[in-house]
């Protein structure tokens, strides 16, 4: 039962924080909310007994990707854009459509996954796997057993995708004209006076 409560807690935090990522004005806040959503999804994964994957989430997503985002936001000095005016216009329509889809999903999913038909309760919706008590793998061992033997090709393709991402990032940002970085703008140099340079 406690697993249930924790699942709902983590899910609500995940939903709310991912919503806040796109709603807040300040970029740093939105990245911090992104980090919170990653951590709560790692928590859900912990509850599903995938501890390796959860820790990998935290290491890769939070430790690498979110930190990368933070660096970029820091260096680019993004101004906060006040775009509150026209977001509210689409909210009712989007809420109706989203509500319709959500009800449909919940109805269909709820019909299919009835694990305990005798005790239809909101809180006691747990499912007990007897075989796991006898013979368990740790998750990292099972991932290794499957990914590197049965799904090797998929692993290699995923590696290819990452290679492609690296090449893409380099292609889109590289500036092969190295000499132009160090150009002098004479006008700017000559128009300095001590009033706009010296900070006392």
């Amino acid at each position, binding site marked *: 039962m406690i697993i249930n409560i924790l699942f709902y807690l983590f899910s609500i935090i995940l939903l709310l924080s991912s919503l806040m990522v796109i709603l807040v004005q300040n970029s740093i806040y939105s990245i911090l909310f992104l980090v919170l959503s990653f951590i709560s999804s790692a928590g859900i994964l912990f509850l599903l007994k995938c501890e390796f994957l959860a820790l990998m989430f935290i290491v890769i997503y939070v430790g690498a990707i979110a930190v990368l985002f933070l660096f970029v936001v820091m260096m680019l000095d993004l101004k906060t854009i006040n775009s509150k005016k026209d977001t509210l216009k689409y909210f009712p329509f989007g809420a109706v459509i989203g509500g319709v889809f959500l009800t449909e999903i919940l109805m*269909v*999913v709820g*019909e*299919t996954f009835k694990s305990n038909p005798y005790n239809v309760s909101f809180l006691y919706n747990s499912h007990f796997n007897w075989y796991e008590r006898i013979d368990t793998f740790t998750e990292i061992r099972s991932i290794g057993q499957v990914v590197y033997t049965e799904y090797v*090709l*998929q692993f290699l393709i995923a590696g290819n995708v990452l290679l*492609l991402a690296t090449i*893409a990032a*380099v292609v*889109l940002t590289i500036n092969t004209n190295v000499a132009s970085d160090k150009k002098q703008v004479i006008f700017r140099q000559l128009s300095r006076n001590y009033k706009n340079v010296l900070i006392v």
Partner: protein
Amino acid sequence: MRIETLLFKEVVILPELFLGISLVYLVLHCTFLSIKKNYPLIQNSILYLGVLVLFLSCFLVLNDGLEVLEQSVLNDTIVNDYVSFSSKLVIGSLSLFCLLMIQPYITSQKINQFEYILLILFAVLGLFLLCSSNDLLTAYLAIELQSLAFYVLASFKRNSTYSVDAGIKYFILGAFSSSLFLFGSSLLYGVTGTINFEEFKDLFVNVFPGSYDTISTEISLFDFSLVQFGLVFILISLLFKLAIAPFHTWAPDVYEGSPSASTFFFAVVPKLAIFVLLLRIFYYSFFGFFESWRYFIVVIVVLSIIVGSFGGLEQRKLKSLLVYSSISHMGYALIAFSAGTLESIQMLLCYLIVYSFSGLCVWSIFILTRLKNNHLQKQNKDLTDLVLLGKSNYMLAIFFTTVLFSVAGFPPMIGFLVKISVFLTAVESSMFFVVLISILCSVIGTFYYIRLIKILYFEKVLVGKLYYPIQAQSSVLISFLFFLFLFLFINPTLLYLFSYKISLLVSMSI
């Protein structure tokens, strides 16, 4: 013509392996070369190297002999049957033509980064893997590989706002549709416990939910609505990728803003592979669920054809016109997809092959006509830029006219033949209303094609636009395509036999 390669007989994915390894090698080689010699202009030689690599991988595909049909390779995640063989062959040869055609474009537009070619090769690798994928995970990874290459290809010109805009739009829409695919496949995995297409087929071979005939009058013990639900998501994500109405709104912006060589690729090459995936999922694995999505597809078909026909009427730029024409063509292909018989798969594949070849012709004409006095530096040709092409380059104008009549589906061209084959399958399944509407809309669509012909020939202006002459290599390729076109009408038996053989393999459960 088969060369015995004894050592490599059982390596099923030899073409993809070769392509992947040579791509990695090319990346390393070019990077080190660039750094060492201070970034020389190597994109032309890399293009020819890429052509060589593609040609050799096509040769490896052709050489396969299909000997490993009954074995389960790579844990049954890769299937190597006639469908994958033929679609890989078609996609490989199309990409080969594309690469050779865009060579003058790359040199004249100063796309100086060699990675352009490598990205195209990555996309082709993704398409090869997509054609021979046998489960949802491989399909998703292959789609991601191909899509990621295309996102970057769309935004390759960094100085142009249009290009960057197109890249971002494509990226967001593509990521969204891939996530829909993932959601659908996770639902399918949740219900069935497997992601393999063969196992789906074994599980659902006698299940016909949603149909009202006598097969399923007994009370089924299992409620299939979640499976249908997952299938809907997968279907929508694949329809997004094909730019079919009502999921087409990204296509005009993306296709217009990308550099023309990239648009050439987008419009011609990936559609066949995505249709192969659609056929595998919806005709091979889940054929019983046909009735639940059939009318949904019919509505999408009618909408696509109407949007494609009416949308193209007010376009003033050539690229947007061609985008809307490809939207309507995908609508016609979906008519054959929604008919549900063996002949319909055969005609669908015929239609796709002819569509790809005619798309190749039209887009290569678009790329090869380069304006001489282009002081505005505009890339997207207005319709009036083609004026008097009949006088300045009359062979190209004749070719353009022939291909346009084929694209419009007008006799006596091969486009007419495949279009009536598609309508024939719809008539066979008694979908008369759909055929009536689509045939009337095709007449409306014919108008903008003959408007192009009018601009080529009929205008009585005194001075037309000047174009650079076409190089010898491109003209050889174009004339080869022209004769292939003319020949295909006189003897289309080859096309029909080819597609019939493919359709027999896909439809084992019908």
